[in-house]
């Protein structure tokens, strides 16, 4: 049986304001999906709602992860069930060392039934694995001693997110603009590493405004989000078209969604 993340007619509000207005998407393990769309169309909102961010309220719809109701699970249960999101804006946690954090995270995700206070992955074993993953990502090992995302440059943060992906080896990964902030070499490295980590093992949803990440992770499907809905789905060629031509055609063909996208953006700019 293929493992599946199945999103049906998902509606999400933030502070009472509807953002997602009926999203449908089925992601099978082993597939790569690209999620594109103009700023403010709701891409990050979809990822955060799937991960269970407390401020993103699901008002209707359903999400199943291998037949189980994802929306019933707490955030950490979702992670332990195999869902991962590399964030567009990762949080820094002062005073908490990367190594400590990764050791707790890896232990929990690998032993989903673990209770607080139970043993962590043995230090030696963990250290060896972490070092090899960091080498692979060309990350200086001193990052393990730094506090989580504290004072990291934009690119370093994104690399740290990929390191977490590599350590946690989820079944389904949402990568939210993991390429932004990376220099040209780093994007290439990220692109190949994600392909290596993922391979046929993961279902990946790549949210991006660029082409590079898709180079080594050729999308089986490309979805375009506009005004809180997926308005078009195609293959890799759709991603290529959008990169070259922009969203003019999409807006033209979906005037209603385009209008909603604009009104959402206006509200945000007006309120900020």
């Amino acid at each position: 049986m293929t493992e599946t993340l199945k999103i049906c007619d998902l509606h999400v509000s933030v502070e009472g304001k509807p953002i997602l207005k009926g999203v449908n998407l089925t992601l099978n393990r082993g597939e790569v999906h690209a999620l594109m769309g103009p700023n403010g169309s709701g891409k990050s909102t979809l990822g955060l709602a799937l991960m269970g961010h407390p401020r993103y309220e699901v008002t209707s719809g359903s999400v199943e992860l291998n037949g189980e109701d994802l929306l019933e699970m707490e955030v950490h249960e979702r992670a332990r069930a195999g869902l991962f999101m590399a964030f567009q804006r990762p949080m820094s946690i002062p005073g908490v060392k990367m190594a400590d954090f990764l050791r707790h995270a890896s232990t929990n995700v690998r032993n989903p039934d673990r209770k607080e206070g139970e043993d962590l992955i043995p230090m030696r074993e963990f250290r060896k694995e972490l070092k090899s993953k960091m080498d692979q990502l060309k990350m200086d090992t001193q990052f393990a001693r730094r506090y989580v995302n504290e004072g990291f440059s934009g690119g370093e943060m994104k690399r740290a997110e990929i390191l977490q992906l590599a350590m946690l080896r989820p079944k389904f990964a949402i990568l939210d603009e993991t390429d932004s902030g990376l220099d040209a070499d780093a994007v290439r490295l990220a692109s190949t590493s994600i392909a290596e980590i993922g391979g046929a093992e993961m279902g990946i949803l790549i949210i991006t405004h660029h082409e590079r990440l898709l180079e080594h992770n050729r999308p089986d499907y490309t979805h375009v989000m506009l005004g809180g809905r997926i308005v078009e789905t195609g293959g890799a060629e759709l991603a290529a078209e959008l990169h070259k031509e922009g969203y003019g055609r999409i807006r033209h063909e979906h005037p209603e969604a385009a209008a909603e996208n604009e009104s959402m953006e206006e509200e945000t700019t007006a309120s900020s």
Partner: protein
Amino acid sequence: MATDTKAEHEDLGFEDINKYDFRNEEKYIFKSRKGLDADIVSEISAMKKEPEWMRDFRLRSLDIFNSKPMPNWGGNINIDFQDIYYYIKPSDRQGHSWDDVPAEIKDTFDKLGIPEAEKKYLAGVKAQYESEVVYGSLQEDLEKQGVIFTDTDSAVREYPDLVQEYFAKVIPPEDNKFAALNSAVWSGGSFIYVPPGVKIEFPLQAYFRINAESMGQFERTLIIVDEGAQVHYVEGCTAPKYTTESLHSAVVEIMVKKGGRCRYTTIQNWANNIYNLVTKRAVAYRDATMEWVDGNLGSQLTMKYPAVYMMEPGARGEILSIAFANKGQHQDAGAKVVHAAPDTSSLIVSKSISRGGGRSSYRGLVKVEDGAKNSKSSVVCDALILDPISRSDTYPYIEVEEDEVTIGHEASVSRINEEQLFYLMSRGLSEPEASTMIVNGFVEPLVKELPMEYAVEMNRLIQLQMEGSVG
């Protein structure tokens, strides 16, 4: 690479305490009757075979105690001074058998993975074990360098001149009501003298003094760091101290002479019925540095404000403190620095955590006396409040009589950040685990100042506080 020393330390399993053979000591040798009066104070002095000056000092202190009103600030103190045993001969106190130690205390010891020597010390159990050998060789090494490290009772007998010269000079009994009480009935505590130029490389730890009186409720510690000398004293009481009494009132006096350096580290975790009212003060002379590192957990009320008086140019004082106020607890902790000479500098960093209805207060005084030009002082206090029923207050007092000074004060109050919690949980950490990690991160800048084993214990203690299994 990832030298995550804390995590690494977790792998070191400490041996199970029950394997050790504890001797049952006699029940008690001497116990004064309950209450406080001149007869009892004289009796204590006589039991200890003290010189006359000490007995007179105690009696004078008792008068001062009686004449002083209770402090009307800080926390609520509700103590019946006549309902307390003021002196129990150590062989009684230390003579508890392991069986007498309450199960939850033992349990906590086990969870903490406290070194076996310290467990017994903490539990007030006197036992035979190998560390005496370690202690012996340490003692020998120190003696060769002229260092004195003993309990204060023994010091009064063995080094009368030294004690008489310095005792109660930094904190006279007139200072405050509880200092007067301690002066009248004190017992135990550490006495340290470090001769000129001697730098002790390893921390001196209270629990090395296993043969001495150490569990006193009215400890009296006196440390003299002579010119150019250096010492780090650690009083690790990281598991709930097992005492049946409800009042702990210690006095710690420290003198750091020219170019000397002293760090005093304490982690205390008291049972929840305890009033912990402690006076700690150091004087630092020319180019000397005094550092207090202070962690307070447990107790019903703690009032503790380690102080540094900078008496001569170039002196420096640092006070780093962590307080965790849980259910039913009030941590009124802080710091006091007095700049009495030019070119002196001080740093106060205070971190407090309140949870389950606990209350933590930072109370600090920065005083710059007239003429203390170019003094610099910086105060940073951060409070973390974990739930809506808990509380945190800040009482910063600044008295400056000099113009050419630089004084900085920053304070922050925060709650656990929802975004941080979400981030950690999205990586598989449960909510309690994630909160604990954030709290440990919050105190990390101070915890990393602790000797490694104490840093490990501090993190575990916080974990236990967060689980609610302590307190």
